[in-house]
Protein backbone atom coordinates (compact mmCIF):
# COMPACT_ATOMS: atom_id res chain seq x y z
CA UNK A 1 0.00 0.00 0.00
CA UNK A 2 1.31 3.41 -0.85
CA UNK A 3 0.40 6.31 1.41
CA UNK A 4 1.00 9.87 0.43
CA UNK A 5 3.11 11.61 3.03
CA UNK A 6 1.94 15.08 3.83
CA UNK A 7 3.79 17.57 5.95
CA UNK A 8 2.42 17.88 9.45
CA UNK A 9 0.29 20.93 10.15
CA UNK A 10 1.26 22.37 13.51
CA UNK A 11 -1.24 23.70 16.01
CA UNK A 12 -1.20 27.15 17.56
CA UNK A 13 -0.41 30.24 15.52
CA UNK A 14 0.54 29.15 12.04
CA UNK A 15 1.44 31.16 8.96
CA UNK A 16 0.61 29.22 5.83
CA UNK A 17 2.20 30.60 2.67
CA UNK A 18 0.60 29.04 -0.40
CA UNK A 19 0.85 29.09 -4.14
CA UNK A 20 -1.41 26.11 -4.61
CA UNK A 21 -4.93 26.55 -3.28
CA UNK A 22 -5.52 22.79 -3.17
CA UNK A 23 -2.57 22.34 -0.83
CA UNK A 24 -3.84 25.20 1.32
CA UNK A 25 -7.32 23.66 1.42
CA UNK A 26 -5.82 20.40 2.57
CA UNK A 27 -3.80 22.13 5.32
CA UNK A 28 -6.87 24.16 6.38
CA UNK A 29 -9.02 21.04 6.64
CA UNK A 30 -6.48 19.23 8.72
CA UNK A 31 -5.96 22.25 10.97
CA UNK A 32 -9.70 22.70 11.54
CA UNK A 33 -10.29 18.99 11.83
CA UNK A 34 -7.83 18.73 14.74
CA UNK A 35 -9.63 21.59 16.49
CA UNK A 36 -13.08 20.17 15.98
CA UNK A 37 -11.90 16.83 17.32
CA UNK A 38 -10.70 18.66 20.43
CA UNK A 39 -14.08 20.28 20.93
CA UNK A 40 -13.10 23.71 19.63
CA UNK A 41 -15.30 25.87 17.49
CA UNK A 42 -13.86 26.37 14.00
CA UNK A 43 -14.06 29.42 11.78
CA UNK A 44 -13.15 29.47 8.15
CA UNK A 45 -12.60 33.06 6.98
CA UNK A 46 -11.96 33.59 3.29
CA UNK A 47 -12.90 35.76 0.36
CA UNK A 48 -14.91 33.08 -1.43
CA UNK A 49 -18.69 32.94 -1.38
CA UNK A 50 -20.00 30.55 1.28
CA UNK A 51 -20.86 27.79 -1.16
CA UNK A 52 -17.34 27.87 -2.65
CA UNK A 53 -15.83 27.87 0.82
CA UNK A 54 -18.00 24.90 1.69
CA UNK A 55 -16.69 23.02 -1.32
CA UNK A 56 -13.14 23.79 -0.28
CA UNK A 57 -13.84 22.33 3.15
CA UNK A 58 -15.40 19.18 1.68
CA UNK A 59 -13.70 16.21 3.22
CA UNK A 60 -13.91 17.45 6.77
CA UNK A 61 -15.52 14.73 8.87
CA UNK A 62 -19.25 15.41 9.28
CA UNK A 63 -18.99 18.78 7.55
CA UNK A 64 -22.74 19.27 7.25
CA UNK A 65 -23.35 18.36 10.87
CA UNK A 66 -20.57 20.62 12.08
CA UNK A 67 -21.93 23.56 10.08
CA UNK A 68 -25.47 22.87 11.24
CA UNK A 69 -24.54 22.65 14.91
CA UNK A 70 -22.39 25.76 14.72
CA UNK A 71 -19.24 23.84 15.57
CA UNK A 72 -17.89 25.15 12.29
CA UNK A 73 -18.71 28.51 10.76
CA UNK A 74 -17.91 29.94 7.37
CA UNK A 75 -17.31 33.62 8.06
CA UNK A 76 -16.96 36.35 5.41
CA UNK A 77 -13.87 38.53 5.88
CA UNK A 78 -15.91 41.71 6.34
CA UNK A 79 -17.56 40.09 9.30
CA UNK A 80 -14.36 38.92 11.01
CA UNK A 81 -12.27 41.95 10.03
CA UNK A 82 -12.98 45.66 9.34
CA UNK A 83 -14.80 46.10 6.03
CA UNK A 84 -12.25 48.69 4.86
CA UNK A 85 -9.51 46.07 5.14
CA UNK A 86 -7.44 48.17 7.57
CA UNK A 87 -7.05 46.14 10.71
CA UNK A 88 -6.81 47.85 14.08
CA UNK A 89 -4.35 45.60 15.96
CA UNK A 90 -5.84 46.20 19.40
CA UNK A 91 -9.47 46.12 18.28
CA UNK A 92 -8.96 42.97 16.26
CA UNK A 93 -7.52 41.05 19.18
CA UNK A 94 -10.44 42.31 21.28
CA UNK A 95 -12.87 41.03 18.64
CA UNK A 96 -11.32 37.58 18.69
CA UNK A 97 -11.29 37.63 22.49
CA UNK A 98 -15.04 38.24 22.40
CA UNK A 99 -15.50 35.46 19.86
CA UNK A 100 -13.41 33.10 21.99
CA UNK A 101 -15.54 33.87 25.03
CA UNK A 102 -18.64 33.22 22.95
CA UNK A 103 -17.29 29.88 21.77
CA UNK A 104 -16.53 28.89 25.36
CA UNK A 105 -19.98 30.04 26.46
CA UNK A 106 -21.45 27.85 23.75
CA UNK A 107 -19.74 24.85 25.24
CA UNK A 108 -16.67 24.65 23.04
CA UNK A 109 -13.19 24.23 24.43
CA UNK A 110 -11.87 27.15 22.42
CA UNK A 111 -11.87 28.88 19.05
CA UNK A 112 -9.76 27.92 16.06
CA UNK A 113 -9.66 30.10 12.95
CA UNK A 114 -8.37 29.57 9.45
CA UNK A 115 -8.20 32.96 7.75
CA UNK A 116 -6.99 33.74 4.27
CA UNK A 117 -5.62 37.19 5.10
CA UNK A 118 -4.11 37.91 1.69
CA UNK A 119 -6.53 40.76 1.03
CA UNK A 120 -5.82 42.29 4.43
CA UNK A 121 -2.10 42.57 3.78
CA UNK A 122 -1.97 43.61 0.15
CA UNK A 123 -0.61 47.14 0.56
CA UNK A 124 2.37 48.22 2.68
CA UNK A 125 0.06 50.17 5.01
CA UNK A 126 -2.28 47.18 5.42
CA UNK A 127 0.66 44.89 5.95
CA UNK A 128 2.15 47.10 8.63
CA UNK A 129 -1.10 47.08 10.60
CA UNK A 130 -1.68 43.39 10.07
CA UNK A 131 1.86 42.53 11.12
CA UNK A 132 1.40 44.50 14.35
CA UNK A 133 -1.85 42.61 14.88
CA UNK A 134 -0.08 39.29 14.22
CA UNK A 135 2.26 39.75 17.18
CA UNK A 136 -0.51 40.99 19.48
CA UNK A 137 -2.72 38.05 18.62
CA UNK A 138 0.25 35.72 19.04
CA UNK A 139 0.48 36.86 22.66
CA UNK A 140 -3.27 36.46 23.04
CA UNK A 141 -3.02 32.87 21.83
CA UNK A 142 -0.52 32.12 24.58
CA UNK A 143 -3.08 33.24 27.16
CA UNK A 144 -6.42 32.08 25.82
CA UNK A 145 -7.80 29.00 24.04
CA UNK A 146 -7.60 30.62 20.65
CA UNK A 147 -5.52 29.51 17.67
CA UNK A 148 -5.26 30.60 14.07
CA UNK A 149 -3.82 29.64 10.74
CA UNK A 150 -3.11 32.84 8.79
CA UNK A 151 -2.87 32.04 5.10
CA UNK A 152 -1.22 34.27 2.52
CA UNK A 153 -1.14 33.84 -1.24
CA UNK A 154 2.53 34.23 -2.06
CA UNK A 155 1.82 34.59 -5.77
CA UNK A 156 -0.27 37.68 -5.03
CA UNK A 157 1.82 39.18 -2.25
CA UNK A 158 5.29 37.98 -3.18
CA UNK A 159 7.69 36.20 -0.85
CA UNK A 160 9.21 39.36 0.73
CA UNK A 161 5.76 40.60 1.79
CA UNK A 162 4.77 37.18 3.13
CA UNK A 163 8.06 37.04 5.03
CA UNK A 164 7.14 40.28 6.86
CA UNK A 165 4.11 38.49 8.26
CA UNK A 166 5.44 34.94 8.51
CA UNK A 167 8.38 35.95 10.72
CA UNK A 168 5.88 36.98 13.43
CA UNK A 169 4.48 33.46 13.73
CA UNK A 170 5.99 30.66 15.79
CA UNK A 171 5.26 28.22 12.95
CA UNK A 172 5.36 28.80 9.22
CA UNK A 173 5.95 27.03 5.96
CA UNK A 174 7.14 30.25 4.25
CA UNK A 175 10.08 29.31 2.01
CA UNK A 176 13.50 30.68 2.82
CA UNK A 177 12.47 32.36 6.06
CA UNK A 178 15.40 32.10 8.45
CA UNK A 179 14.08 33.61 11.68
CA UNK A 180 10.90 34.08 13.70
CA UNK A 181 9.95 36.49 16.46
CA UNK A 182 7.01 35.34 18.51
CA UNK A 183 5.45 35.52 21.94
CA UNK A 184 6.85 33.07 24.44
CA UNK A 185 4.32 33.43 27.18
CA UNK A 186 0.94 34.87 28.00
CA UNK A 187 2.29 38.13 29.35
CA UNK A 188 4.08 41.03 27.75
CA UNK A 189 7.28 40.20 29.53
CA UNK A 190 9.14 38.09 26.98
CA UNK A 191 9.41 37.29 23.30
CA UNK A 192 11.07 34.39 21.55
CA UNK A 193 13.68 34.65 18.83
CA UNK A 194 14.18 31.52 16.75
CA UNK A 195 16.20 30.53 13.69
CA UNK A 196 19.03 32.48 12.15
CA UNK A 197 19.65 36.24 12.06
CA UNK A 198 22.19 37.44 9.52
CA UNK A 199 22.56 40.24 6.96
CA UNK A 200 20.06 38.59 4.62
CA UNK A 201 17.22 39.35 7.04
CA UNK A 202 18.49 42.33 8.98
CA UNK A 203 15.84 44.70 7.60
CA UNK A 204 13.14 42.13 8.15
CA UNK A 205 14.30 41.69 11.74
CA UNK A 206 14.26 45.44 12.32
CA UNK A 207 10.73 45.67 10.94
CA UNK A 208 9.58 42.71 13.04
CA UNK A 209 10.92 44.31 16.20
CA UNK A 210 9.20 47.59 15.41
CA UNK A 211 5.92 45.84 14.80
CA UNK A 212 6.16 43.60 17.83
CA UNK A 213 6.34 46.75 19.97
CA UNK A 214 8.13 44.86 22.72
CA UNK A 215 7.72 46.45 26.10
CA UNK A 216 10.44 46.54 28.75
CA UNK A 217 9.76 45.13 32.18
CA UNK A 218 11.83 46.54 35.04
CA UNK A 219 14.24 48.08 32.56
CA UNK A 220 14.75 44.82 30.72
CA UNK A 221 13.51 43.83 27.32
CA UNK A 222 13.48 40.08 27.56
CA UNK A 223 14.00 37.67 24.68
CA UNK A 224 14.54 33.97 24.92
CA UNK A 225 16.19 31.94 22.22
CA UNK A 226 16.03 28.21 22.91
CA UNK A 227 15.68 27.69 19.16
CA UNK A 228 18.01 30.49 18.10
CA UNK A 229 20.68 28.95 15.89
CA UNK A 230 22.63 32.03 14.78
CA UNK A 231 22.74 35.74 15.52
CA UNK A 232 25.25 38.08 13.94
CA UNK A 233 26.79 41.26 15.28
CA UNK A 234 24.49 43.51 13.22
CA UNK A 235 21.39 41.96 14.75
CA UNK A 236 22.82 42.20 18.25
CA UNK A 237 23.74 45.82 17.62
CA UNK A 238 20.24 46.51 16.36
CA UNK A 239 18.74 44.78 19.36
CA UNK A 240 20.86 46.96 21.64
CA UNK A 241 19.70 50.13 19.88
CA UNK A 242 16.08 49.00 19.96
CA UNK A 243 16.25 48.38 23.70
CA UNK A 244 18.17 51.57 24.41
CA UNK A 245 15.55 53.60 22.53
CA UNK A 246 13.00 52.14 24.93
CA UNK A 247 15.06 52.96 28.00
CA UNK A 248 15.94 49.33 28.57
CA UNK A 249 18.61 46.69 28.20
CA UNK A 250 17.83 43.74 25.94
CA UNK A 251 18.35 40.48 27.79
CA UNK A 252 18.79 37.55 25.42
CA UNK A 253 18.69 34.09 26.92
CA UNK A 254 20.46 31.67 24.62
CA UNK A 255 22.92 28.82 24.76
CA UNK A 256 24.77 30.18 21.71
CA UNK A 257 28.31 30.85 22.98
CA UNK A 258 28.99 33.28 20.14
CA UNK A 259 26.22 35.68 21.17
CA UNK A 260 27.88 36.60 24.44
CA UNK A 261 31.31 36.68 22.78
CA UNK A 262 30.08 39.18 20.18
CA UNK A 263 28.43 41.37 22.81
CA UNK A 264 31.68 41.43 24.74
CA UNK A 265 33.80 42.08 21.64
CA UNK A 266 31.64 44.99 20.54
CA UNK A 267 31.14 46.24 24.11
CA UNK A 268 27.41 46.50 23.44
CA UNK A 269 25.93 48.19 26.48
CA UNK A 270 22.33 47.83 25.35
CA UNK A 271 22.23 44.04 25.30
CA UNK A 272 23.12 41.34 27.78
CA UNK A 273 23.35 37.65 26.96
CA UNK A 274 22.41 35.12 29.60
CA UNK A 275 23.09 31.42 29.26
CA UNK A 276 19.88 29.51 28.67
Amino acid at each position, binding site marked *: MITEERPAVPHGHVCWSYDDSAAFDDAARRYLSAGLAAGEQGWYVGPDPAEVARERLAGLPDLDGALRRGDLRIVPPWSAYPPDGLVDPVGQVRAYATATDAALAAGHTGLRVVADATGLAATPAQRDRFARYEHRVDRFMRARPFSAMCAYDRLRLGDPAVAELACLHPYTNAPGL*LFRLSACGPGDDCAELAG*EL*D*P*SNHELFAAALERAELRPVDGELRLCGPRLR*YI*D*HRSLTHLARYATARGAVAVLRTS*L*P*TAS*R*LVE*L*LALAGVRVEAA
Partner: protein
Amino acid sequence: MRTGAASDHQGYFHEAVCYGSDEELLAITVPFLRDGVAAGEPTIVAFGAEHAALVRSALPAATAVEFLSGGDLYARPAAAIRAYRALLATHVARGVGQIRIIGELSPAMLGVTWDWWARYESAINHAYDEFPLWSMCAYDTRTAPPEVLTEVARTHPRYATADGRHVPSEHYVEPEVYLAENRLPVPDPLQLTPPAVELADPTAAEARRAVYAAAGGRLPLEQVEDLVVAVSETVTNAVRYGRPVVCLRVWACDDRVVVSVTDRGAGPTDPFAGLLPARDGGPGGLGLWITHQSCSHVAHYRDVDGFTIRLTAGDPHFRTDAAPRAELTASPATG
Protein backbone atom coordinates in the same frame (compact mmCIF):
# COMPACT_ATOMS: atom_id res chain seq x y z
CA MET B 1 56.80 62.86 31.06
CA ARG B 2 58.60 60.08 29.29
CA THR B 3 61.96 58.65 30.26
CA GLY B 4 64.80 56.75 28.63
CA ALA B 5 65.34 56.36 24.90
CA ALA B 6 61.73 57.35 24.17
CA SER B 7 61.85 60.52 26.26
CA ASP B 8 61.58 62.84 23.26
CA HIS B 9 59.29 60.59 21.26
CA GLN B 10 55.60 61.16 20.57
CA GLY B 11 53.40 58.10 20.48
CA TYR B 12 54.59 54.55 20.14
CA PHE B 13 58.32 53.78 20.46
CA HIS B 14 58.54 50.29 18.97
CA GLU B 15 61.75 48.29 19.13
CA ALA B 16 62.88 44.81 18.27
CA VAL B 17 65.30 42.90 20.47
CA CYS B 18 67.18 40.30 18.46
CA TYR B 19 69.28 38.42 20.97
CA GLY B 20 71.60 35.47 20.67
CA SER B 21 71.85 34.38 24.31
CA ASP B 22 70.07 34.65 27.63
CA GLU B 23 72.75 37.05 28.77
CA GLU B 24 72.05 39.33 25.83
CA LEU B 25 68.30 39.19 26.51
CA LEU B 26 68.84 40.10 30.15
CA ALA B 27 71.32 42.84 29.26
CA ILE B 28 68.51 44.61 27.44
CA THR B 29 65.52 43.57 29.50
CA VAL B 30 66.71 44.21 33.02
CA PRO B 31 67.75 47.88 32.60
CA PHE B 32 64.59 48.52 30.57
CA LEU B 33 62.42 47.21 33.38
CA ARG B 34 64.47 48.59 36.24
CA ASP B 35 64.50 52.12 34.80
CA GLY B 36 60.76 51.95 34.12
CA VAL B 37 60.02 50.98 37.71
CA ALA B 38 62.40 53.65 39.01
CA ALA B 39 60.53 56.25 36.93
CA GLY B 40 57.19 55.08 38.30
CA GLU B 41 56.06 53.92 34.87
CA PRO B 42 53.81 50.86 34.44
CA THR B 43 56.37 48.23 33.50
CA ILE B 44 55.14 44.98 32.01
CA VAL B 45 56.65 41.69 30.89
CA ALA B 46 54.69 39.42 28.54
CA PHE B 47 57.06 36.48 28.16
CA GLY B 48 56.50 32.77 28.12
CA ALA B 49 57.12 30.87 31.35
CA GLU B 50 60.80 30.15 30.72
CA HIS B 51 61.89 33.68 29.97
CA ALA B 52 59.58 35.14 32.60
CA ALA B 53 61.38 33.01 35.20
CA LEU B 54 64.74 34.07 33.83
CA VAL B 55 63.84 37.75 34.11
CA ARG B 56 62.33 37.33 37.57
CA SER B 57 65.54 35.73 38.80
CA ALA B 58 67.59 38.61 37.44
CA LEU B 59 65.49 41.36 39.02
CA PRO B 60 65.81 42.46 42.62
CA ALA B 61 63.10 40.97 44.81
CA ALA B 62 59.81 42.89 44.96
CA THR B 63 60.55 44.90 41.84
CA ALA B 64 57.21 46.36 40.76
CA VAL B 65 57.12 44.69 37.38
CA GLU B 66 53.85 43.23 36.16
CA PHE B 67 54.11 39.82 34.50
CA LEU B 68 51.41 38.95 31.98
CA SER B 69 50.87 35.51 30.56
CA GLY B 70 52.23 35.83 27.05
CA GLY B 71 50.41 32.71 25.93
CA ASP B 72 46.93 34.06 26.63
CA LEU B 73 47.69 37.54 25.44
CA TYR B 74 49.14 36.38 22.16
CA ALA B 75 46.46 33.89 21.18
CA ARG B 76 45.38 36.00 18.19
CA PRO B 77 46.80 39.23 16.78
CA ALA B 78 43.50 41.10 16.67
CA ALA B 79 42.72 40.01 20.23
CA ALA B 80 46.19 41.05 21.40
CA ILE B 81 45.71 44.50 19.86
CA ARG B 82 42.33 44.82 21.51
CA ALA B 83 43.63 43.69 24.91
CA TYR B 84 46.72 45.89 24.77
CA ARG B 85 44.75 48.94 23.63
CA ALA B 86 42.39 48.48 26.57
CA LEU B 87 45.33 48.07 28.95
CA LEU B 88 47.11 51.13 27.58
CA ALA B 89 43.95 53.23 27.69
CA THR B 90 43.50 52.33 31.36
CA HIS B 91 47.02 53.46 32.21
CA VAL B 92 46.71 56.66 30.19
CA ALA B 93 43.43 57.46 31.94
CA ARG B 94 45.37 57.27 35.20
CA GLY B 95 47.67 59.95 33.85
CA VAL B 96 50.89 57.96 33.41
CA GLY B 97 53.60 59.50 31.27
CA GLN B 98 54.81 56.26 29.69
CA ILE B 99 54.12 52.55 29.70
CA ARG B 100 56.91 50.04 29.14
CA ILE B 101 56.25 46.54 27.82
CA ILE B 102 58.57 43.80 26.70
CA GLY B 103 57.04 40.72 25.12
CA GLU B 104 57.74 37.70 23.00
CA LEU B 105 55.83 35.35 20.74
CA SER B 106 56.01 31.64 21.42
CA PRO B 107 58.24 29.66 19.03
CA ALA B 108 55.16 28.08 17.43
CA MET B 109 53.99 31.49 16.28
CA LEU B 110 57.13 31.93 14.25
CA GLY B 111 56.12 28.93 12.11
CA VAL B 112 53.25 28.54 9.69
CA THR B 113 51.14 31.23 11.37
CA TRP B 114 53.93 33.80 11.34
CA ASP B 115 52.26 35.71 8.47
CA TRP B 116 49.54 37.11 10.67
CA TRP B 117 51.97 37.89 13.49
CA ALA B 118 54.13 39.77 10.98
CA ARG B 119 51.02 41.76 10.09
CA TYR B 120 50.48 42.33 13.80
CA GLU B 121 54.02 43.64 14.28
CA SER B 122 53.46 46.09 11.46
CA ALA B 123 49.91 47.13 12.39
CA ILE B 124 50.75 47.99 15.99
CA ASN B 125 52.99 50.82 14.79
CA HIS B 126 49.68 52.48 13.99
CA ALA B 127 47.39 50.78 16.51
CA TYR B 128 49.40 51.81 19.58
CA ASP B 129 50.62 55.14 18.29
CA GLU B 130 48.08 57.14 20.26
CA PHE B 131 49.65 55.90 23.50
CA PRO B 132 52.95 56.87 25.20
CA LEU B 133 54.19 53.32 24.87
CA TRP B 134 57.74 52.07 24.71
CA SER B 135 57.75 48.40 23.86
CA MET B 136 60.29 45.81 22.91
CA CYS B 137 59.60 42.60 21.00
CA ALA B 138 62.14 39.90 21.72
CA TYR B 139 63.30 37.43 19.04
CA ASP B 140 65.88 34.71 19.61
CA THR B 141 68.23 34.73 16.62
CA ARG B 142 69.27 31.16 17.41
CA THR B 143 65.79 29.78 16.78
CA ALA B 144 63.83 32.34 14.78
CA PRO B 145 63.81 31.43 11.07
CA PRO B 146 65.70 33.86 8.83
CA GLU B 147 62.50 34.87 7.03
CA VAL B 148 61.01 35.88 10.38
CA LEU B 149 64.01 38.06 11.19
CA THR B 150 63.67 39.68 7.76
CA GLU B 151 60.07 40.62 8.55
CA VAL B 152 61.08 41.80 12.04
CA ALA B 153 63.42 44.27 10.39
CA ARG B 154 60.64 45.50 8.12
CA THR B 155 58.05 45.90 10.90
CA HIS B 156 60.12 47.43 13.70
CA PRO B 157 61.33 51.02 13.31
CA ARG B 158 64.35 50.36 15.50
CA TYR B 159 66.38 47.80 17.46
CA ALA B 160 67.47 47.83 21.07
CA THR B 161 70.93 46.33 21.47
CA ALA B 162 72.72 44.68 24.40
CA ASP B 163 75.22 47.53 24.58
CA GLY B 164 72.44 50.01 25.30
CA ARG B 165 71.98 51.52 21.85
CA HIS B 166 68.73 52.16 19.99
CA VAL B 167 69.42 51.71 16.30
CA PRO B 168 67.02 52.55 13.47
CA SER B 169 66.05 49.63 11.27
CA GLU B 170 67.08 50.52 7.75
CA HIS B 171 64.58 48.04 6.34
CA TYR B 172 61.57 49.41 8.20
CA VAL B 173 58.44 49.88 6.08
CA GLU B 174 55.47 51.99 7.12
CA PRO B 175 52.49 49.79 8.06
CA GLU B 176 50.21 51.20 5.34
CA VAL B 177 52.75 49.99 2.78
CA TYR B 178 53.72 46.75 4.48
CA LEU B 179 50.15 45.62 5.10
CA ALA B 180 49.11 46.38 1.53
CA GLU B 181 51.64 43.83 0.24
CA ASN B 182 50.28 40.51 -0.91
CA ARG B 183 51.30 37.90 1.62
CA LEU B 184 50.87 34.30 0.54
CA PRO B 185 50.46 32.01 3.55
CA VAL B 186 52.17 28.65 3.85
CA PRO B 187 49.75 26.28 2.10
CA ASP B 188 48.02 23.98 4.52
CA PRO B 189 48.56 20.39 3.36
CA LEU B 190 44.83 19.87 3.75
CA GLN B 191 44.32 22.25 0.87
CA LEU B 192 46.13 19.80 -1.40
CA THR B 193 43.37 17.27 -0.80
CA PRO B 194 39.82 17.30 -2.14
CA PRO B 195 37.66 19.55 0.03
CA ALA B 196 34.92 18.01 2.12
CA VAL B 197 32.59 20.70 0.84
CA GLU B 198 32.79 22.99 -2.16
CA LEU B 199 30.04 25.51 -2.91
CA ALA B 200 29.73 28.20 -5.56
CA ASP B 201 28.02 31.46 -4.61
CA PRO B 202 26.63 30.16 -1.31
CA THR B 203 24.43 32.27 0.89
CA ALA B 204 25.78 32.91 4.37
CA ALA B 205 23.23 30.43 5.73
CA GLU B 206 24.35 27.74 3.26
CA ALA B 207 27.96 28.41 4.20
CA ARG B 208 27.15 28.03 7.90
CA ARG B 209 25.45 24.71 7.28
CA ALA B 210 28.40 23.49 5.22
CA VAL B 211 30.78 24.24 8.09
CA TYR B 212 28.58 22.51 10.63
CA ALA B 213 28.37 19.48 8.36
CA ALA B 214 32.11 19.23 7.82
CA ALA B 215 33.28 20.26 11.29
CA GLY B 216 30.71 18.67 13.53
CA GLY B 217 32.24 16.39 16.13
CA ARG B 218 35.82 17.13 15.12
CA LEU B 219 36.39 20.18 17.28
CA PRO B 220 34.92 21.48 20.54
CA LEU B 221 31.53 23.06 19.92
CA GLU B 222 32.73 26.52 20.87
CA GLN B 223 35.47 26.44 18.24
CA VAL B 224 33.00 25.27 15.61
CA GLU B 225 30.58 28.07 16.54
CA ASP B 226 33.36 30.65 16.33
CA LEU B 227 34.37 29.31 12.92
CA VAL B 228 30.76 29.47 11.77
CA VAL B 229 30.65 33.15 12.73
CA ALA B 230 33.87 33.79 10.83
CA VAL B 231 32.71 31.95 7.72
CA SER B 232 29.34 33.66 7.77
CA GLU B 233 30.95 37.09 7.97
CA THR B 234 33.50 36.23 5.29
CA VAL B 235 30.92 34.94 2.84
CA THR B 236 28.72 37.96 3.55
CA ASN B 237 31.61 40.28 2.73
CA ALA B 238 32.52 38.33 -0.40
CA VAL B 239 28.94 38.45 -1.69
CA ARG B 240 28.46 42.13 -0.79
CA TYR B 241 31.80 43.65 -1.66
CA GLY B 242 33.62 41.07 -3.76
CA ARG B 243 32.83 39.84 -7.24
CA PRO B 244 31.25 36.54 -8.21
CA VAL B 245 31.89 33.70 -8.37
CA VAL B 246 32.32 33.25 -4.61
CA CYS B 247 33.80 29.84 -3.90
CA LEU B 248 33.65 28.23 -0.47
CA ARG B 249 35.80 25.22 0.32
CA VAL B 250 35.97 23.34 3.61
CA TRP B 251 38.56 20.79 4.66
CA ALA B 252 38.52 18.94 7.94
CA CYS B 253 40.79 16.56 9.78
CA ASP B 254 41.07 15.45 13.38
CA ASP B 255 42.72 18.55 14.79
CA ARG B 256 41.54 21.39 12.57
CA VAL B 257 39.05 22.68 10.04
CA VAL B 258 40.21 24.91 7.21
CA VAL B 259 37.86 27.06 5.15
CA SER B 260 38.74 29.17 2.15
CA VAL B 261 36.46 31.81 0.65
CA THR B 262 37.54 33.15 -2.72
CA ASP B 263 35.90 35.82 -4.83
CA ARG B 264 37.00 37.48 -8.05
CA GLY B 265 37.42 40.90 -6.48
CA ALA B 266 40.51 42.62 -5.11
CA GLY B 267 39.71 42.36 -1.41
CA PRO B 268 39.54 45.15 1.18
CA THR B 269 41.44 48.37 0.58
CA ASP B 270 41.97 49.15 4.27
CA PRO B 271 45.48 47.84 5.08
CA PHE B 272 44.47 47.28 8.71
CA ALA B 273 41.40 45.24 7.76
CA GLY B 274 40.89 42.42 10.21
CA LEU B 275 43.44 43.60 12.76
CA LEU B 276 41.53 46.72 13.72
CA PRO B 277 37.82 47.47 13.46
CA ALA B 278 37.19 49.48 10.30
CA ARG B 279 38.34 53.02 11.03
CA ASP B 280 35.46 54.69 9.23
CA GLY B 281 32.90 51.93 9.62
CA GLY B 282 33.97 50.96 6.11
CA PRO B 283 32.46 48.08 4.22
CA GLY B 284 32.89 44.76 5.88
CA GLY B 285 35.51 46.02 8.31
CA LEU B 286 33.79 44.93 11.48
CA GLY B 287 32.98 41.49 10.10
CA LEU B 288 36.59 40.87 9.09
CA TRP B 289 37.76 42.05 12.51
CA ILE B 290 35.35 39.65 14.20
CA THR B 291 36.64 36.91 11.91
CA HIS B 292 40.17 37.61 13.13
CA GLN B 293 38.94 37.31 16.73
CA SER B 294 37.17 34.02 16.08
CA CYS B 295 39.71 31.77 14.34
CA SER B 296 43.03 30.26 15.33
CA HIS B 297 44.52 31.61 12.11
CA VAL B 298 43.39 33.89 9.30
CA ALA B 299 45.29 34.53 6.11
CA HIS B 300 44.21 36.66 3.18
CA TYR B 301 45.90 36.93 -0.16
CA ARG B 302 45.43 37.61 -3.84
CA ASP B 303 46.31 35.23 -6.63
CA VAL B 304 45.07 34.36 -10.11
CA ASP B 305 41.75 33.17 -8.67
CA GLY B 306 41.04 36.50 -7.00
CA PHE B 307 40.96 37.35 -3.31
CA THR B 308 40.99 34.54 -0.77
CA ILE B 309 40.49 34.47 2.96
CA ARG B 310 41.62 31.25 4.60
CA LEU B 311 40.24 30.52 8.03
CA THR B 312 41.47 27.86 10.42
CA ALA B 313 39.82 26.53 13.56
CA GLY B 314 41.57 24.10 15.86
CA ASP B 315 45.33 23.67 15.79
CA PRO B 316 46.73 25.91 13.03
CA HIS B 317 50.33 24.74 13.47
CA PHE B 318 50.31 22.06 10.80
CA ARG B 319 53.43 20.20 9.83
CA THR B 320 55.09 21.29 6.66
CA ASP B 321 57.46 18.35 6.34
CA ALA B 322 56.58 15.41 4.14
CA ALA B 323 53.73 14.01 6.16
CA PRO B 324 52.15 10.96 4.56
CA ARG B 325 49.45 12.17 2.24
CA ALA B 326 46.96 9.66 3.59
CA GLU B 327 47.19 11.25 7.04
CA LEU B 328 46.15 14.56 5.61
CA THR B 329 43.34 13.49 3.36
CA ALA B 330 40.09 15.18 4.22
CA SER B 331 37.20 13.00 5.11
CA PRO B 332 34.30 12.97 2.73
CA ALA B 333 31.47 15.38 3.35
CA THR B 334 29.07 14.26 6.00
CA GLY B 335 26.09 16.23 4.77
